[in-house]
């Protein structure tokens, strides 16, 4: 059964005011197109969960979509701080819940596997545990040692960008796979954006590559370049220059507003956004081919 739809329709249908959203992808394949569409549709009071809020959540926070942030590293990776989020955390205008990467991912893992909690070994550092009452402890019944546990995170909707999927939503990812699978299985609804829609025979030629199976997917949106300024392995490069540029933009609220006006509100969809980027930028992000060695599944 095809689940093909536009990203506009998918966001309209599956992202509601007040929802907990997990836009997945660790540095790689961050679903910026969906983030921009949520901004355009004016969603409010969202709880935005992501290990690294990255620029995508900073833009959504700046646009007023968020009530609360759940995170484990609130920086601009390799650049510095996320100035807008940092300021809102400092002045108390944004609620938050903070984890380490592993405990954040363990929350997704518990949600994805249907468990009431996930255990982790102690790290000796307890200040975060004291600051966040979601952390609890459980005694190992074999040795009496205490483990730290976190409860499941079950987002209302997970948004995952992928390299290729079929029209039903069987999706394949390569490169950094972060927490996409866990986010998808943990969530109530799953929206996929994809660089390519392929025939199911392509997917079925390599079933071990499938990270997300169709039956947990609600919407499949064909959105090439959906992850810029993040990247899609094998399709285009990370726009490091923009990550550095954003650091300058956020020095001035007026520039942030101008950016959102021009690049989010001012474009209809991702295609318009991509075409609006300077030709030099699009050129700079191109990638030469480097194919994986073939594998043979055999005809049985």
């Amino acid at each position: 059964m095809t689940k093909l739809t536009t990203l506009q329709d998918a966001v309209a249908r599956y992202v509601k005011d007040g929802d907990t959203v997990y836009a997945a992808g660790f540095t790689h394949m961050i679903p910026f197109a969906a983030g921009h569409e949520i901004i355009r549709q004016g969603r409010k009071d969202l709880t935005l969960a992501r290990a690294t809020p990255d620029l995508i959540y900073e833009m959504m926070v700046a646009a007023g979509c968020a009530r609360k942030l759940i995170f484990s590293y609130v920086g601009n990776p390799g650049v510095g701080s996320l100035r807008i989020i940092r300021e809102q955390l400092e002045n108390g205008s944004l609620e938050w819940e903070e984890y380490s990467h592993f405990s954040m991912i363990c929350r997704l893992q518990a949600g994805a596997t249907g468990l009431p909690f996930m255990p982790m070994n102690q790290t000796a550092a307890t200040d975060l545990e004291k600051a966040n009452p979601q952390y609890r402890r459980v005694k190992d019944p074999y040795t009496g040692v205490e483990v730290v546990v976190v409860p499941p995170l079950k987002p209302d909707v997970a948004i995952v960008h992928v390299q290729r999927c079929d029209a039903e939503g069987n999706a394949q990812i390569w490169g950094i796979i972060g927490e996409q699978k866990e986010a998808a299985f943990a969530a109530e609804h799953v929206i996929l954006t994809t660089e390519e829609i392929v025939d199911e025979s392509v997917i079925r030629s390599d079933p071990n590559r499938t990270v997300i199976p169709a039956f947990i997917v609600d919407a499949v949106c064909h959105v090439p370049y959906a992850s810029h300024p993040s990247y899609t392995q094998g399709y285009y490069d990370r726009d490091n220059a923009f990550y550095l540029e954003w650091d300058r933009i956020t020095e001035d609220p007026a520039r942030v507003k101008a950016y959102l006006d021009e690049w989010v509100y001012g474009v209809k969809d991702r295609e318009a956004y991509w075409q609006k980027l300077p030709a030099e930028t699009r050129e700079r992000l191109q990638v030469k081919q480097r194919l994986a060695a073939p594998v043979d599944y055999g005809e049985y």
Partner: protein
Amino acid sequence: MEYTASELLIINAARLLKDGDTVFVGVGSPNLACNLAMRTHAPSLLMIYEAGVVGSRPSRLPLSIGDPTLVSGAAAVTSMYEIFSLYLQRGNVDVAFLGGAQIDRYGNINATVIGSDYQHPKVRMPGSGGSMEIAGWANRCYVMTPHQKRRFPEKCDFITSAGFLGGRQQRLATGARGGGTQCVVTDLGLLEPDENGELVLTALHTGSTLEQARENTGWPLRSAPDLKHTDPPTERELRILREELDPQGTYR
């Protein structure tokens, strides 16, 4: 040969790595230190990134820890859950580099908030990322930092990543499997934990003095009875760093 403070840090950090070490690498200076070690005394260093990449051979300097150049040509890619559980928690990581705004007397690190009230921070920093578990479970943790008093308080405002807490016994009592902070490399010298887990000055770089180190440390810094001097950066180390690893001088 002349060199910058940053080069001094990177070269001394590289020398801490042993051939065959499995290293949890961060971007920036630690990345350069690992690559330098690989090209000098530790050719079979295994680099692991918290993004889930194992055995990277980056052909360019990555800006972020999730750069595609870390993936193309790597030995393995796995999920974040697995890199933190199968690799780190299981005890498969020898070395990690950590960073933060504050490193205290017992090697604890703060990368979360400045100020005593977590809910109302004076300065909000990025937070743990992978470092809370890395500090807990890697066998040896290293820190590279400029030697400044505000970076070396007696006690961190918030412990993001555990060193020895209030002393080595306190850490041991938690059962955390890792060895804790084993060395802090600064532009003045090396700090290492003594038998109680307190950081003491164990080596000075050429041209630095114990007095300088003491003036720039927030607790009464002791020096090791056998205070050493580090060998200055060699021509070869500097050449590899400048010509092969950072030709654009990003991390000078």
